[in-house]
């Protein structure tokens, strides 16, 4: 159903029809798969790189200028590329790693390449918010660097880290939709192929609704967990 033939309300009403959702539902599960797997990778590698950034910085617990500078520069390189370009750049890498440059798994690789650097920076800024006095108190008690990292720095900044991860997941979702137009499948693919190329605006509307609902849900879950922790600690 195109907006060129039917009124807005008719198209919108049709976007809830069974016919449309028969096509959209499989795409949702594809998108969920890509978002889920990418988010796990983003979480693990983003935290790891973020922690290295903070630890090796000049005021960090284990200052190391070489590691800090090189890592920071690499992250900045990836951060300075628009997501479309990262997807294109990562196509050959995906082919080398998973055997083909299209499909969900290939998409995951470009998603990770784009969102890990972003999340690493978010982790860094969350950890830098921590009051230096707490780190000093732990130091004065004779706590070792890694113990300070995992028993003080990460738990103390947990609410902020959770919010940062929520943001990262939302960006992963929007990027999954973008990657859809490069053969990744999922909701983005439906939106581009049917909604843009074939003027099936009912399908386009359906994908918009799905994306809004997913992002709202993710944001709600992230905010709630973060708030619950703050409440438990009586900080709000």
């Amino acid at each position, binding site marked *: 159903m195109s907006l060129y033939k039917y009124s807005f309300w008719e198209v919108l009403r049709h976007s809830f029809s069974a016919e449309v959702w028969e096509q959209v539902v499989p795409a949702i599960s594809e998108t969920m798969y890509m978002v889920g797997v990418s988010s796990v990778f983003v979480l693990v590698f983003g935290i790891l790189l973020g922690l290295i950034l903070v630890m090796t910085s000049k005021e960090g617990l284990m200052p190391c200028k070489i590691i800090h500078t090189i890592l920071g520069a690499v992250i900045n390189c990836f951060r300075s590329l628009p997501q479309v370009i990262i997807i294109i750049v990562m196509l050959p890498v995906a082919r080398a790693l998973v055997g083909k440059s299209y499909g969900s798994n290939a998409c995951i690789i470009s998603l990770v390449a784009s969102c890990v650097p972003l999340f690493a920076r978010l982790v860094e800024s969350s950890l830098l918010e921590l*009051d230096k*006095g*707490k780190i*000093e*108190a*732990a*130091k*004065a*008690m*004779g*706590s*070792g660097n890694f*113990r300070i990292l995992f*028993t*003080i720095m990460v*738990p*103390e900044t*947990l609410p902020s880290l959770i919010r940062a991860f929520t943001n990262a997941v939302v960006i992963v979702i929007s990027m999954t939709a973008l990657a859809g137009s490069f053969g990744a499948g999922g909701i983005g693919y439906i939106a581009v192929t049917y909604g843009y190329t074939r003027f099936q605006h009912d399908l386009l509307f359906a994908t918009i609704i799905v994306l809004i609902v997913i992002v709202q849900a993710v944001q709600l879950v992230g905010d709630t967990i973060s708030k619950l922790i703050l409440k*438990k*600690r*009586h*900080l709000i």
Partner: protein
Amino acid sequence: MEDKFIEVKQLYKTFHTKKQDIEVLKGIDLSVEKGEIYGIVGFSGAGKSTLVRCINRLEEPDSGSVKIGDKEITALGKAQLNEQRRKIGMIFQQFNLFDSMTVAQNIAYPLKLTGTSSKEADARVEEMLALVGLTEKKNAYPGELSGGQKQRVGIARALANRPDVLLSDEATSALDPQTTLSVLDLLKEINKKLGLTIILITHELEVIKYTCHRMAVMEDGKILEKGPVRDIFQNPECATARNFIGVYNKFRSDYWQEDAE
């Protein structure tokens, strides 16, 4: 005979900033006896905080030595330093409690570092809570406590490992007068009870007068005058000490005058 427990000799420290080098400690000599409360007073920027932070090497001195007992703190390697730091308690102006842990977990944190068994640690936590009078706040989070209560937890945490020394870095400066008094009373009590040596830095002279046995007056990275608190109050030799005591007396006399009216 004087029992020199903590000995600081010819301590120098310079902070390097982009614009300039600031010499914060200019050859500090200090000795503290076992079991005494030693006060260091000075205006903001005098270097007293840096001095006390050099004692457990939160700040690395450029030269000079710090000795506690027979341990040369300034000569320790990283692992030995961490070992030694577990025997030096420290409390802070901003308390620096860990918000992610309950009061009991905060106090147990240093105990975990020494590998104390959990049963022993539990008993020690109870003992410490009783000492600072916060037994009923055991499972509270620091976010629920008042400033004075937070500092009591800070003290309990600092004392959990039975340290030989307690360093107090402006520990009462963020508290109201009444709470200050109760925290100082607590420090005096543990000093007497446990024979703990305390180094206390402050910019409030009344804190020193109320708490300390001996004191030093610091200005501009140097110690101008040191000795028993009473001697310095009765006969301040340097201008800074006179200035401090003058301000202190002025506050007191104004208070009495107002009272008389």
